[in-house]
């Protein structure tokens, strides 16, 4: 397409400006994490300063970062994997054995996400307590799985819809049973959808804070709960908070950067073809 070079330059500048603007708060968080508390609240704000690692040291001294990180990792990965295991067959069934109710079921599943978590806290808390699952990774994993399940089913459903029916029929004629059909045809063909679904759910689980705060105490806390102990009501804490926040989000942000291509390709929710 013929384009005006001026326009291209303008567009490039605009895109970079927008990106930097949107990224600025995060970048600022990054800078603040390396300041002292006094520098953090300096007026006017400091862009150039002598970076210190003291805040990170303090975070590590105060709380067992690795424990929280491990819990975050376990719960988000486990909930994603389990979720995919439950969601994949359901999505498969909806995509390839359509009935009149398929659409209603899908919408119903989504609507289960609309109940405010706060409203369900007490029932879930009491249930978890009865089951002896308070402060356990399993309870947290279960809750993450269930709350992400509707999104997973929906995304997988739409990625399965992209697989031409004829390919499945060909496999059936080749003598494939249900498992072989799923294993050898559906699964490899929906890898992209599976990956982006997994990525999104990983991010959502990693960033979940309400359940993580309320269902855990000493053992199963995730990085989201770590943050809750850094906005101190007494004393200056901006730099320490930034350091803790940075440590809490760094893994998932970096992971997100690397997987953004995958996300761009997969995050279509069946709307874009």
């Amino acid at each position, binding site marked *: 397409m013929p384009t005006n070079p001026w326009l291209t330059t303008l567009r490039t500048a605009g895109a970079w400006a927008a990106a930097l603007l949107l990224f600025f708060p995060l970048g600022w968080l990054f800078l603040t994490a390396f300041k002292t508390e006094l520098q953090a609240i300096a007026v006017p704000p400091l862009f150039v300063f002598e970076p210190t690692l003291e805040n990170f040291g303090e975070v590590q001294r105060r709380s067992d970062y690795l424990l929280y990180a491990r819990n975050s990792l376990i719960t988000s990965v486990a909930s994603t994997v389990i979720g995919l295991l439950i969601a994949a067959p359901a999505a498969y069934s909806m995509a390839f054995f359509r009935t009149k109710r398929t659409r209603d079921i899908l919408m119903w599943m989504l609507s289960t996400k609309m109940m405010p978590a706060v409203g369900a806290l007490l029932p879930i808390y009491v249930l978890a307590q009865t089951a002896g699952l308070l402060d356990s990774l399993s309870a947290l994993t279960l809750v993450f799985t269930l709350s992400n399940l509707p999104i997973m089913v929906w995304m997988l459903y739409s990625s399965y819809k992209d697989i031409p029916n*004829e390919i499945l029929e*060909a496999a059936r004629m*080749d*003598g494939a049973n249900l498992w072989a059909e799923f294993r050898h045809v559906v699964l*490899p*063909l929906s890898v992209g959808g599976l990956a982006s679904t997994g990525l999104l759910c990983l991010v959502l689980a990693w960033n979940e804070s309400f359940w993580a705060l309320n269902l855990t105490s000493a053992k199963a806390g995730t990085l989201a709960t770590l943050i809750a102990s850094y906005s101190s009501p007494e004393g200056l804490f901006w730099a320490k908070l930034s350091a803790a926040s940075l440590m809490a989000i760094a893994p998932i942000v970096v992971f997100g950067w690397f997987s953004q291509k995958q996300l761009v390709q997969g995050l279509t929710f069946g709307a874009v073809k």
Partner: protein
Amino acid sequence: MAYLQLKNIHKRFDDVHVIRGVDLDIRQGEFIVFVGPSGCGKSTLLRLIAGLEHITSGGLVLDGRDITHMPSGQRDLAMVFQSYALYPHMSVYDNMSFALRLAKVPKDEIRRKVEHAADQLRLTPYLRRTPRELSGGQRQRVAIGRAIVRAPKVFLFDEPLSNLDAALRGNTRVEIHKLHVALGATSIYVTHDQVEAMTLADRVVVFKDGLIEQVGTPLELYDRPANRFVAQFIGMPSMNLVAAGAIPAFSARSGGRLAADGLLGVRPEGLRVHAADGAGEPGRVDLIEALGADTLIHLAVGGVPLIARQNERTPLRVGDAVRVELDPTQLHLFDAQGQAIAHPETVS
């Protein structure tokens, strides 16, 4: 004896009656072509045979076994889909060997069979590629190869060439023909394409609205169409049909056997076009299509549009007045219901 038997097959989708009672006996090694207008149920019937849809009523017998309710994987049929339906994530080799692997055929044997088929189809250099790295024609051959390696009892083809461009289509058609001759496998082939039907088929089945109109060899259908529908459906350009009396001079050639409400049919090559001072009925040239080897002349004779075909170039121009003569040995006659009552004698 029939190898594959279709016994009074019916298919309904909810309230639509798509296949309305089809009986057909297919002999072993036969190449059967299904033709018919779009939506007449060709694909549906093929899918019923394949076991991809439930048969509403009726029966299917293959090689003496009743397969009416057997899952398609066990029927021992192979299908070549219009879109090829290759497994996009597998190499050509894996595509071709998939069914054998599922059937737990020993590795050596798989290799032998696949390589043999690849050889036959000139696919050997591409065995490691995935379908997206192949051209349309090559993909098409892989789809056929996938069917061949299984050595199924019957091959099913659903418009396998319709996604290819004209030139490739011609070549692949010839290849399919040669392959059929080489393998001698029973085949059912659905197509829209006249030339494919004429050149590939041992017998052609003409469908209309979920019912069989006529079954016969290509030239039987060409020369002795059972009714008006088949007459117009087979042959390109279509047979000219003239209502009795519309061109009295033509009707007169029927030897009095044409009813007053009957139809007279003549293929384009049965018409001769002469200059305005020649013999025949006066007419006018509407359009000339010179194809090189032959020429199609679109005419209007007494208001009736006709197409004549001749093997020479024509000096005529659009709008020229001409005379059109009928070859009396090429006449088809139909009654008021469209059933054929007479055909020309033809060398065959």
